[in-house]
């Protein structure tokens, strides 16, 4: 890309006496994990293309506390939440978009009781709206006619009943969406939720991500579409274990749209 994309911080907005249209909450995975950073960058490119005036918190962002809360450490969760709320309220943030369903759920549902009230939108819903408002156009490009299956993240699907926005985006790519045996409200977890991402699984006969990846592979899809950085990691590991690397890709929906648009 020749054109330099600027990622302004909320502090920079304030310094210019402006407030951003929306705050992009990047999340820990999107900030630090090499695979997830690609999702972050793809989404920023789309925001930029659609001309959205967004800001990030940058170094002022901190973990929402989701893994702490699900691990049972309510104390740490509330410490994180109150620190973040102080920052967000300081910048008078009203609207937040995030590509991580865990951050989404926590910010949307668990921050209000601690004094943080925002309109929180998952990036798939946000992209859907941008397209509906004709701020962003997408064409199938390289995904046209490809068999794609979509893995429902628990914290987007069951937890918040968002099943359709991601599917509509996949259909806009002219891809052939094939459903796994367990999908939507019956979707099987990737195995990362509830802070499992950060610990070894308990003894069993299989890892959850392997079970889920096998189910995705059974559809014959060439692409497993994800909408959560943690699901993405788990499914990518599953693909490696199944030795399907290079044959089946795990992509976030934002990445798919960005690459279809050659961004």
């Amino acid at each position, binding site marked *: 890309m020749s054109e330099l994309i600027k990622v302004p911080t909320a502090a920079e907005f304030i310094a210019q006496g402006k407030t951003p249209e929306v705050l992009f909450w990047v999340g820990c995975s999107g900030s*630090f994990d090499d695979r997830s950073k690609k999702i972050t960058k793809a989404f920023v490119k789309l925001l930029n293309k659609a001309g959205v005036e967004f800001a990030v918190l940058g170094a002022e962002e901190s973990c929402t506390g989701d*893994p702490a809360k699900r691990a049972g450490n309510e104390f740490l969760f509330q410490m994180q939440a109150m620190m973040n709320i102080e920052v967000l309220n300081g910048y008078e943030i009203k609207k937040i978009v995030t590509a991580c369903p865990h951050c989404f759920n926590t910010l949307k549902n*668990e921050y209000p009781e601690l004094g943080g009230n925002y309109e929180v939108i998952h990036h798939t819903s946000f992209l859907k709206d941008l397209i509906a408002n004709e701020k962003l156009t997408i064409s199938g490009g390289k995904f046209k006619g490809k068999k794609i299956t979509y893995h429902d993240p628990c914290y987007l699907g069951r937890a*918040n009943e968002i099943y359709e926005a991601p599917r509509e985006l996949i259909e806009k790519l002219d891809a052939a969406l094939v459903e796994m045996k367990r999908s939507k409200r019956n979707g099987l977890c990737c195995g*990362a939720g509830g802070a499992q991402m950060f*610990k070894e699984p308990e003894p069993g006969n299989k890892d959850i991500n392997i079970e889920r990846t096998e189910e995705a592979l059974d559809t014959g899809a060439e692409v497993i579409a994800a909408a959560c950085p943690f699901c993405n990691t788990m499914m990518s590991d599953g693909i490696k274990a199944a030795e399907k690397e290079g044959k089946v890709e795990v992509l976030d929906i934002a990445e798919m749209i960005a690459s279809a648009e050659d961004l």
Partner: protein
Amino acid sequence: MEYIPQIIFALILIAGVGYFTSNIRKMIRNIKLGREVDRSDNKKERWAQMARIALGQSKMVRRPVAGFLHVVVYVGFVIINIEVLEIIIDGLFGTHRIFAPYLGGVYDFLIGTFEILALLVLVTVVVFWIRRNAMNIKRFTMGELKGWPKNDANYILYFEVVLMSLFLIMNATDFILQTRGVEGYAHAGEIFGSFPVSQYVAVFFETMTDSTLIIIERAAWWIHIVGILIFLNYLYWSKHLHIMLAFPNVYFAKLKPKGQFTNMEAVTAEVKLMMDPDADPFAAPDPAAMEEEPASLGASDIFDLDQVQLLNAYTCTECGRCTSECPANITGKKLSPRAIMMKTRDRLEEVGAVINKEGEWKDDGKKLLNDHITTEELWACTTCNACVEACPIGIDPLSIIMDMRRYLVLENSAAPTDLNNALTNIENNGAPWPYNQMDRLNWADEL
């Protein structure tokens, strides 16, 4: 002398209903051992939810085969109970089919409907028995159902078979006695009721004498109504309490998004104090707060769970839909959301038994945590909400798992080591991995 059967019937009825009531009161007492929880909000939405999910069985039919079969038994049970009302009145006043003269043609229609439903229930119960015992469906055969839970489920099916058969035998013999104009059954040449099913059962009895028929009819009548009273009293000891508790359970179920976990107010107060720059760390604590014994954070026993969670435990029918959808259980981990509910009820009954014996709660040295539910089960949960979504009657096993995890972490600092490392990272640098918070925006340089 002629009133003796009625007096006996009244005594049996009083004993049956009385014993049942005393057990239900014990159950309510046990539920009240839990913490109070306010679910008095959104009454309209709660009634609507109850109508849809409990009365309307909307979540049952998500699995079409089991759902359809269940609806047959459910509708049969509810509607045939109208007939039980008549049976009770007849028993108390020595009347015969007391509703018939008042309802006329409607009565014939009702009895006909009851008979068809009774037949459908019989067939369905047989299919249920085959599914449970011969089809090797994992949720019916797995470890936690061995022994009493499996027997309990079968006993209920046998009960249904016996009750429905007695109902049809009673009607068949009654039909013949009415046709023959036998005293006590005759109504001036009129036949009360219609018998679309039992007229075929009647074929087996046609050659019998009047007196034999009366004995069979009376025996069937008595065993049927006494059977119903025994069944009523069996409920308290069985997974079958759901036929009553499903309704309040769905009413009180969580309405908030499934991903929203409860906020711990006690922690909020402490965190606010910590973050308040004007707070005086040496100030004397509020005397009102000192009087109460500080409640434990999270749950290690049933006393720390809330009353809705305890109601959940009594309501669970052990169908295992939750467990069959649980990612941890599917992949061979020890966790089973159904077992979480069963163990919670077991512990609650264990505590209740101490109270029954001692008159008040005396520590028995046991707890829900470790004595019933192990930490291995608790840490296997991905909090994915599949169990909550799967439950046809609004039970939330995840909330119990979460409260127990909270106890482990907040009271015992007993999180698994690798998880503790991630939590320490969050505390120190605002991310579960050991990266510097100042580097959070480094990705922007790679655009």
